[in-house]
């Protein structure tokens, strides 16, 4: 259903073009600026170099930097700066030769292998495998011996041999794109292969190509300077960066300074190319909550002390004004804004909404298990009288498994692929109790029987990849029940399963809930699941709860236009032979959410005042709240 409603959120970055996105970052500006300046200076060396790079002056040897010689002079009294500028020319040329050869080999082969597939793909990949293992340096040395120290031939060879890495990545991208719907559609419409390759595949590979080119350019400079350092490039007195390091090495004890300009410039150039490549990779990667290696400092996790007050009431779990932000490479993004709901002992609360509404983040935030770049920025999660957002690691560890347990969306991904099922379950059992190994094993078999897994002894010996998704979810449920929790958080427990298995797993969950009396927080987007399994429902939209009520009341008459629209678009609720009403538009991604009512752009009832202020949760009756100021218009509808 969520597929009907939402289109995957896309970052504006892609449309703005890679170059602009790169230049929007400080790293991008600094590295690109440095490289452009360096290349320009080297190309203009005959014009701007202060001295002839070959002009010797034996009365001024090994000087340190001065007004006359900004970077000093070498052992023959030549101006170091001028030699660096001239030497850079050969490095840049070598880099271009290497990169051109790499792109010329990698792009056509990668696109062809990925797009055509089949035997051609297999042969190319096999060859690439072999070439990856070739000790490149020996080939380069052989080339230099045979071609009389021609760096150009060596660099072209380097490009050809080094193409396999880039080719693999392009092939992967081309394969993915090939399987996408719009490409199949274009094929059906009769676009030729060439057209598809040039219109659809190559533009999408642009980011990958730039990243790989940039990293390879760094490698090429490294190799070229290394070869010239070994004296395998143009013969002296021609200036090369590697050659200058080599010359500096002869005067190590008397003039160590000479190592700095040449080696430093090589390092800076390689560094700039490498960082530029990384920057392009970062700006072309896309995910709202992708960390890009960022972490939130623990100090930031602390919510505002003044805001929090433990509400009285009997709820087992009471989430109040919970806000969560993620630190992404593009800045801080608020994903949850003031989420509130209650869950009593023994009840099942369905948390419902489209993809991107924040359901799963809420579930993880309750357990204080957000990703490293996410943090609670406000509000509280009161469980059994304690605020979990301010609990210490130790307190949380004591709660997890024994008081609150979790089963997640992708049962296969929830099990550690490297350990046998029995060993994982046994470890969880033993972390709750001080059972012996054998006793724990017996308890594991018991649990596996409880979740109706066939042949537990045999099953315990298997690895996760050897069982089906339905079985994996039963294993996960067994693991969650190992500590007899009071609250089970089930994050879309059946979404990834076959339809036939879904019903079984839900029936199992209902049975276990009846038997154990635990409360369940059930994240789902499926109204059928809500109707079958839940006592209450909380509907989420764009990081907020928009309605919470007992199930019968919601199904009787939704009290928020979004709830109504969501129910109308549910395939199983739609009357036969009528088209499903998909909600027009998409959930606004975090960071682009409108002021006022967040649903107003997609809402039939919206009026001017919906945009004026943030809409609060309004209490409609004892058990029901809604975040809409026009509920009276809805209530009249059946």
């Amino acid at each position: 259903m969520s597929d009907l409603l939402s289109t995957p959120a896309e970052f504006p970055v892609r449309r703005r073009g890679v170059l602009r996105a790169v230049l929007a970052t400080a790293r991008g500006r600094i590295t690109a600026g440095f490289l452009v300046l360096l290349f320009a200076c080297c190309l203009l060396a005959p014009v701007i170099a202060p001295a002839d790079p070959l002009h010797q002056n034996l009365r001024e040897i090994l000087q340190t930097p001065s007004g006359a010689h900004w970077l000093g002079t070498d052992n023959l009294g030549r101006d170091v700066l001028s030699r660096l500028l001239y030497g850079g020319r050969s490095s840049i040329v070598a880099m271009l030769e290497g990169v051109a050869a790499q792109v010329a080999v990698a792009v056509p082969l990668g696109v062809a292998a990925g797009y055509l597939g089949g035997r051609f793909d297999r042969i190319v990949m096999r060859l690439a495998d072999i070439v990856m293992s070739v000790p490149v340096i020996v080939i380069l040395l052989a080339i230099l011996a045979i071609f009389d120290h021609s760096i150009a031939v060596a660099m072209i060879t380097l490009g050809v041999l080094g193409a396999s890495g880039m080719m693999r990545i392009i092939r992967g991208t081309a394969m993915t794109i090939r399987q996408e719907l719009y490409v199949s559609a274009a094929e059906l419409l009769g676009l030729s292969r060439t057209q598809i390759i040039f219109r659809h595949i190559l533009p999408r590979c642009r980011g990958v190509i730039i990243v790989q080119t940039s990293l390879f350019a760094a490698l090429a400079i490294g190799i070229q300077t290394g070869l010239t350092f070994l004296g395998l490039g143009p013969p002296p007195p021609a200036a090369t960066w590697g050659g200058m390091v080599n010359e500096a090495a002869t005067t190590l004890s008397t003039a160590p300074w000479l190592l700095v300009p040449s080696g430093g410039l090589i390092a800076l150039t390689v560094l700039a190319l490498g960082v530029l490549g990384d920057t392009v990779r970062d700006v072309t990667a896309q995910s709202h909550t992708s960390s890009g290696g960022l972490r939130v400092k623990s100090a930031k996790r602390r919510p505002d002390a003044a805001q929090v007050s433990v509400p009285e009431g009997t709820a087992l779990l009471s989430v109040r004004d919970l806000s969560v932000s993620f630190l992404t490479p593009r800045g801080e993004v608020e994903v949850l804004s003031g989420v509130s709901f209650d869950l009593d002992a023994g009840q099942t609360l369905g948390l419902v909404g489209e993809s991107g509404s924040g359901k799963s983040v809420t579930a993880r935030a309750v357990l204080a298990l957000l990703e490293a770049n996410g943090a609670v920025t406000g509000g509280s999660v009161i469980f059994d009288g304690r605020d979990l957002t301010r609990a210490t690691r130790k307190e949380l560890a004591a709660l997890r498994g024994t008081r609150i347990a979790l089963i997640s969306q992708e049962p296969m991904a929830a099990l550690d692929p490297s350990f046998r099922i029995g060993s994982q379950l046994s470890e969880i059992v033993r972390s709750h109790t001080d059972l012996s190994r054998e006793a724990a094993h017996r308890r594991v078999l018991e649990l596996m029987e409880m979740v109706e897994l066939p042949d537990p002894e045999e099953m315990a010996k298997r690895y996760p990849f050897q069982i089906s998704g339905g079985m994996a979810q039963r294993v996960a449920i067994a693991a969650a029940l190992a500590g007899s929790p009071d609250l089970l958080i089930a994050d879309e427990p059946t979404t990834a399963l076959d339809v036939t298995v879904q019903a079984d797993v839900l029936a199992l969950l209902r049975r276990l809930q009846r038997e154990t009396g635990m409360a369940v927080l059930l994240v789902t987007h499926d109204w059928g699941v809500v109707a079958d399994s839940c006592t209450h429902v909380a509907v989420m939209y764009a990081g907020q709860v928009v309605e919470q009520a007992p199930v019968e009341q919601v199904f009787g008459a939704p009290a928020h236009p979004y709830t109504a629209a969501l129910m109308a678009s549910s395939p199983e609720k739609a009357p036969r032979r009528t088209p499903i009403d998909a909600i027009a538009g998409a959930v606004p991604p975090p960071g682009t959410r409108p002021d006022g009512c967040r649903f107003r752009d997609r809402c039939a009832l919206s009026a001017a005042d919906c945009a004026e202020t943030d809409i609060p949760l309004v209490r409609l009756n004892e058990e029901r709240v809604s975040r809409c100021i026009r509920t009276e218009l809805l209530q009249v509808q059946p």
Partner: protein
Amino acid sequence: MGRLIVHRVAMSIPLLLIVSLIIFGLEAVVPGDAASTILGQNATPESLAALRVQLGLNDPWIVRYGHWLGGALHADLGTSIISGVDVTSSLNSRLAVTLSLLVPTMLLSAVAGIALGFASAVRGGILGRFIDVVSLFGFAVPSFWIALILVTFFAVHLNLLPATGYQDFATSPTGWLKSIILPVLALSLQGITSVAKQTRDTVMEVLETDYVKFLRANGVSERSVRYRHVLRNAAIPVVTSLGLVSVGMLSGAVFIENVFVLPGLGSLATQATLDHDVPVILGVGVFFTLCVIAINLVIDFAYGLLNPKVRVS
């Protein structure tokens, strides 16, 4: 597992053929040959022709390749066109030097890289930023330059270690150790930083997986999560990258051996390149390729042990 190893051994044959064919083939298509290299520019046509007959250079290249291959199968890699010395024996005598450099470097890179990367991923904070920054420098700074800086500091200024030269382990174990410390350090910098970075990235990725969340959510202790589950799962990609780093070290060894004047395979190959001595380079090519094959076998074996999918099937 067995199949993986067999597959890898089978792949090593085309690899050896490709390396030798590239070098042999290129030499054949380029004008000028061993005879003119040996005799220099002042050679008379008659003496050149005589030498060509003697060296068998008038045969088509595929025949000569066949000869070479036949010899190579019996561990005979021909003779140097400069010194006339048997290539196999001169390679054998230098192999120990190169391995003295490579093996400690690989071990140091693996141990220090994994430890630093793991610690920085689970701790984060300053150590994490430090690894990120240092790995950039490890990537950017040429190993031969770092080597010279180390020499300036430890050999020239502090006079603690020899600047150049190599001592045989059998003659003097301490001398051997002293002679390899700086080369190993210089060559390790890149290895340690790239392994550390790879480990850090992988561990951070594994820390965010569903199964780590699941284990934590259901009460497994943080210690077990980190040292049992995360370490074990991160090991698989890290081991793969260790293989790539080790293969890359062969290139680094060529530069480092030249800086420290170590009589290993790399300095031999460099001298041979300056002398246009193709048989020697070809020999080094075979040895280096065998090193790559050995590294890949070790990595495959470790991979098979770590990955239950490979182990079980």
